[in-house]
């Protein structure tokens, strides 16, 4: 080793070691999968299966510009200013700011950056369910961007209410990595709910902007930032209003539930028997939850978050493309094993009623709007009894209790 090299080399090593990398900038990610899907709507090459008319750099840039104009950045969130819709009814900008930005606290000691402190590591800065720890979780964290949530009091196709999201934050989701945030002060939970709605709003708007791109003629643009035409501005306001109206009207679409009938033990037993009949009959529950309700009836399907991109009958190459676009490798969606007594959407009878009555959005689970309330209660009663049946007892599955197979 030449002495001449020794010192510079040591200095370089020290510089690299102590200089470090610095924290990555918190940025919103582009909704790549949705953009690709929309590109494909314009036509697909039958050999390569790639879009024939990919969006130009300018097109993508315009969407980015409009998004920042409407929603700001992770550090400085903003809300679209609409004349016909009052967004402050859905999202409170002051509460929102409490969750935005880097983790820290203000002069009064009030914490800021709550989303990045509590949520972003799994759900990602963008709310795409793709934070650094997401890959290790099963199920994966929720991608808020399509505005689609599973556990709510409203029917499929409707947005959840503020309280639905808040319940999930307070209760967590049993059987998943989503913890309860019950220990946070009320105001911080409120702030996080507003932030989740903000990310969801933003994602839905991004979807609609990309959809708009597919309707533009060759020389047209989404908007010309220098001198935007009134028509283009009106189009953008219109699509944001549409997104907003879904959230504004959510509370009115809540499925009202008649009180669970009071029952004597005999009536309850009869109700469960009816529920069992429905489970194998008109309710058709067994076809996915399995003949023994172990969740093994239909195990090859995927959820709508994946199928939105990959199509209703996805092929392996669709998944390859999905992963190339930065998403996590898809996993099959599993019908719930009803013998474990773990209910992700909550274990109150009303929660199970909502799942049976309305179905679960984004999953193959359908609703049963034709069943009268008493029959749905029969199903709820039956489902609630399943974990207590003797075959649900896990001891039966232990090796010493199993019959030897030939």
């Amino acid at each position, binding site marked *: 080793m030449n002495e001449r090299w020794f010192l510079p080399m040591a200095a370089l090593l020290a510089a690299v070691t102590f200089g470090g990398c610095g924290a990555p900038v918190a940025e919103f990610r582009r909704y790549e999968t949705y953009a690709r899907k929309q590109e494909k709507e314009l036509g*697909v090459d039958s050999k390569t299966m790639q879009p024939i008319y990919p969006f130009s750099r300018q097109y993508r840039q315009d969407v980015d510009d409009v998004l920042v104009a409407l929603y700001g950045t992770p550090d400085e969130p903003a809300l679209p200013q609409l004349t016909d819709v009052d967004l402050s009814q859905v999202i409170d900008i002051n509460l929102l700011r409490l969750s935005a930005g880097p983790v820290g606290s203000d002069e009064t000691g009030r914490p800021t950056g709550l989303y990045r402190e509590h949520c972003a590591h799994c759900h990602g800065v963008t709310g795409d369910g793709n934070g650094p720890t997401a890959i290790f979780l099963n199920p994966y964290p929720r991608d808020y961007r399509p505005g689609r949530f599973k556990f709510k009091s409203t029917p499929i196709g409707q947005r959840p209410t503020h309280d639905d999201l808040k319940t999930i934050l307070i209760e967590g989701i049993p059987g998943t990595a989503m913890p309860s945030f019950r220990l946070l002060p009320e105001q911080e939970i409120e702030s996080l709910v507003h932030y989740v709605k903000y990310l969801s709003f933003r994602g839905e708007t991004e979807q609609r902007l990309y959809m708009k791109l597919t*309707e533009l003629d060759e020389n047209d643009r989404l908007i010309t930032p220098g001198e935007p035409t009134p028509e283009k501005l009106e189009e953008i306001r219109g699509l944001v209003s549409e997104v907003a109206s879904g959230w504004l009207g959510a509370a009115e679409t809540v499925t009202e539930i008649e009180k669970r009938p009071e029952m004597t033990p005999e009536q309850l037993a009869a109700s469960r028997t009816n529920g069992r009949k429905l489970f194998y009959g008109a309710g058709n529950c067994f076809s996915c939850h399995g003949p023994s309700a172990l969740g093994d009836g239909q195990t090859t399907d995927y959820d709508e978050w994946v199928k939105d991109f990959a199509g209703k009958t996805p092929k392996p190459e669709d998944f390859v493309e999905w992963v190339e676009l930065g998403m996590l490798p898809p996993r099959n969606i599993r019908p719930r094993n009803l013998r474990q007594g773990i209910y992700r959407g909550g274990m109150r009878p009303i929660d199970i009623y909502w799942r049976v009555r309305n179905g679960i959005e984004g999953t193959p689970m359908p609703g049963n709007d034709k069943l009268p309330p008493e029959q749905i209660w029969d199903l709820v009663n039956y489902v609630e009894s399943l974990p207590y049946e003797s075959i649900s007892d896990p001891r039966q599955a232990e090796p010493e209790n199993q019959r030897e197979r030939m």
Partner: protein
Amino acid sequence: MSAVRDRIGRSLVGLAAVALFSGCPRNQVSALRATPDNAVAIRKALGEGKSATAAPAEVAQPTGWGTIRGQFTLGGTPPARLPLSITKDQQICAPGGRQVLSEELVVDQSGGIKDVAIYLTTKIPLDDPAFIHPDYDATKTAQLVFDQKECIFLTHLFAARTTNAIVLKNSDPIGHNTNIDGKGSAKINVNMAANDSTGYVPGKESPEPFDVNCSVHPWMAAKMLIRDTPYFAVTQPDGTFEIKNVPAGIPLAFKVWQEKLKFITTVKRQSGGQSTDEKWPRSGYKVTLQPDEVHEMNIVIPVQ
């Protein structure tokens, strides 16, 4: 002594190389790349509210009615229809081991393409008899049945007006569920008991056809298109279609869509033995009809 130093030196070089080449993680490839100035300008313009110039422009009045009709054919060899894997309830869904083929692109012997949707996208007043021909009043609220039998949706591309009463029907002796992934229109996913039926209220129109599936039988697939106006058609098995009583004298735009070919813009028009290449704008095929005109669209779609 120098040997030790040499060893230290070499490991230093190694460490430095590792540190240098492993490097720092790059920023996200897919990060948003907005231009701050543009964003500020757009925000300012959006915040200024509805400008005076955005007042509704004078709408041209239709001068009569015309007809659009024609045929869509495929230029080139159609791809083979793949058999679907019937993984459940075979005795009902594939009686006698019958093969069920995909309906993504169905082409007849003469090349006619089934289930091409052609629909008006121009916004027209919906309650003005100058724009919507009175003949359409009869079918405005008609009941349309979307049926499934032997695990096949009997209408593969189902088109209806927002005002139609849609009945979802299950003609099978087994349970199904109808998962309607409405884009713009209502989404529902309802359980359908054997030989049962239920209603579907789409609420709003859809900008493009959307998926209908059955989660119990994942191979079952259909598409639905819901429009506010009656000016839409779905091609017959021979690729022909006809839209009657279309308002004349006003510029109209029609989108043309097929499940596998997606939105169709590059075509060859057949007219009087001539074939001319055409490239339609993405916002749709543009036409202004003359009163009583029969606008012929005999279109060959080349296989990409």
